[in-house]
């Protein structure tokens, strides 16, 4: 710079250099983005190209077998579905309730602080540790065995923070005018919450639930520790029966396997034929989780557009 402050030749060169660096960084940013996308694409393509040819009706309706050509994922997806049923039944009410309490009821005090820090930390505890919790407390402590019920419970605990956080964020985004209007009309807390806040928060909570269940369905480690069996040639007892009362909860106490465990089992075998089956199971799993995440993203996007 010259003394007058106007750019001299040197100054201009400086500016040009700065601009070049600016562009370079933008380039690097785009490159990172590109690589991340490419990895995701490679992962999906590799899995689909290897696995998709194996997916047919037989694959979905057969039991696992020692012969790769005959093996299927029937018990795995049935197990996943039943475990999800338990997880949803537990995680949804508890997650929403905890989120409601922390956002709408909790007084600002020590107890609230402890609960908040605690939930944040639970969200960061490695999933395998939840598995050991289930092993020590549910399987051996409560003698519930290595069952669908325990699997559903441990996954519910694991994804609880996701629903809690989503509920809180959804409630926080409701303008305070809605609360004031309800209270001015004479509503008490629970009326305000149940009649006005929960309906308004529904899209956000729903998004959280779907993301949570998508995570639960792909979770493997905590189920390994509670001994989800990898070779199961039978189905759990059906939840609906022919005799009255037509519903049965026997399946809750049944041993089980789930899709990710079945996939893990097939990956661990040395034969390439089983690796292809693993890819096929992976495709099924990936389609389910990506579809659920996509649905969640869509719901949030639509809700945001509706709110303007």
């Amino acid at each position, binding site marked *: 710079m010259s003394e007058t402050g106007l750019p001299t030749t040197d100054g201009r060169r400086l500016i040009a250099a*700065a601009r070049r*660096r*600016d562009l370079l*960084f*933008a380039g*690097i*940013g*785009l490159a*990172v*983005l590109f*690589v*991340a996308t490419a990895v*995701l694409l490679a*992962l999906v393509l*590799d899995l689909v190209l*290897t696995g998709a040819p194996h997916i047919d009706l037989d694959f979905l309706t057969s039991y696992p077998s020692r012969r790769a050509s005959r093996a299927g994922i029937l018990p795995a997806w049935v197990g996943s579905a039943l475990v999800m049923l338990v997880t949803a039944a537990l995680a949804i009410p*508890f997650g929403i*309730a*905890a989120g409601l*309490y*922390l956002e709408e009821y*909790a007084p600002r005090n020590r107890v609230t602080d*402890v609960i908040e*820090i*605690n939930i944040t930390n*639970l969200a*960061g*505890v*490695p*999933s*395998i*540790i939840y*598995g*050991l*919790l289930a092993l020590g407390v549910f399987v*051996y*402590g409560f003698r519930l065995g290595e069952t669908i019920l325990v699997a559903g419970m441990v996954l519910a605990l694991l994804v*609880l*923070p996701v629903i*809690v956080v989503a509920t809180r964020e959804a409630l926080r985004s409701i303008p305070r005018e809605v609360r004031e209007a309800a209270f001015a009309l004479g509503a*008490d807390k*629970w*009326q305000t*919450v149940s009649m006005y806040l929960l309906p308004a928060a529904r899209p956000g909570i729903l998004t959280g639930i779907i993301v949570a269940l*998508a995570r639960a369905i*792909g979770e493997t*480690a905590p189920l*390994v*520790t*509670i*001994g989800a069996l990898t070779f199961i040639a039978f189905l759990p007892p059906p939840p609906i029966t022919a005799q009255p009362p037509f519903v049965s909860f026997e399946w809750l106490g049944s041993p089980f396997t789930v899709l*990710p465990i079945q996939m*893990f089992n097939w990956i661990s075998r040395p034969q390439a034929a089983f*690796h292809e089956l693993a890819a096929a199971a*992976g495709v099924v*799993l990936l389609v389910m*989780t*990506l579809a659920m*995440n*996509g649905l969640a993203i869509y719901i949030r996007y639509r809700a945001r557009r509706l709110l303007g």
Partner: protein
Amino acid sequence: MAGSLPPADGVLASGIRPSPEFLARRRLKDRIMRGLLFAAASLSVLVTLAIVYVLASESLAFFRHVGLVAFLTDTQWTPLFAEPHYGILPLLAGTVTISAIALSVAIPAGTVLALYLSEYADSRLREVVKPLLEMLAGVPTVVFGYFALLFVTPLLRRLFPDLPGFNMLSPGLVMGVMILPYIVSLSEDAMRAVPDALREGAYALGYTRLQTAVRVVLPAALSGVTAAYLLGMARAVGETMVVAIAAGQNPNFTFNPLEGAATITTYIVQVSLGDVAYGTIAYQSIFAAALTLFLLTLAFNVLGFFLRRRFREVY
């Protein structure tokens, strides 16, 4: 039910008042719900207590047989051998090596991407990229494991022909991609929370975008970004399936990424897959290993929590 009906028009309104029974029922319901919601929120504390109790009690039983000093200094971990050794170091070495690889991918890439998204990208690009990252975060870890073992490792073998099928490099790299979305979204949140006034000040001084991003936004968001790194670390250290599938399950006291090695988490998986009876030292040993892991991640998480809270307070 409503107490009185509205009076005829022309008379001052006198209010539709609820019946005392309705009000009593309403008050009861409000109290019950408040109690139930509080109970649900406290459940999380119970879960934490249960985790600590299980890990501590089983570990205590474990340390009655194995000295703490041996646990922390022995360089062999061979609990299933006839003459068992219980040194956590080999497992820690595996954990640290793989996490280091993952973080050396995820931290630079994540920081660059977050800066790019918050300072460079226009909103349309962001609308596309954020869902993409969420998708990436939604991929099950066992699928990442498959990808590491059967796609990345063969690819790496072209570079390093001697690379064994089980190695730490491949799962490390894949795990880096896996935790990338967390680091990006948390650090981007922190960067976007930096007030625009700071950016305007920088631009007014003649800073370029890059200078603003690196010299103003990044330092201002530092505690939030550091929290993102810490949470990423916690995730890397605790990740199980990718490692169990692609790094092998053999305890190996080495920091060489081209070798295979077990981590704390893979050891737990390995024991769980076998037939280990309740109450044996092998059974207890997975709890001791898990306690180590829990303390590690807890440290990262607590530090991250307070950094994030401090960050929120500043802005």
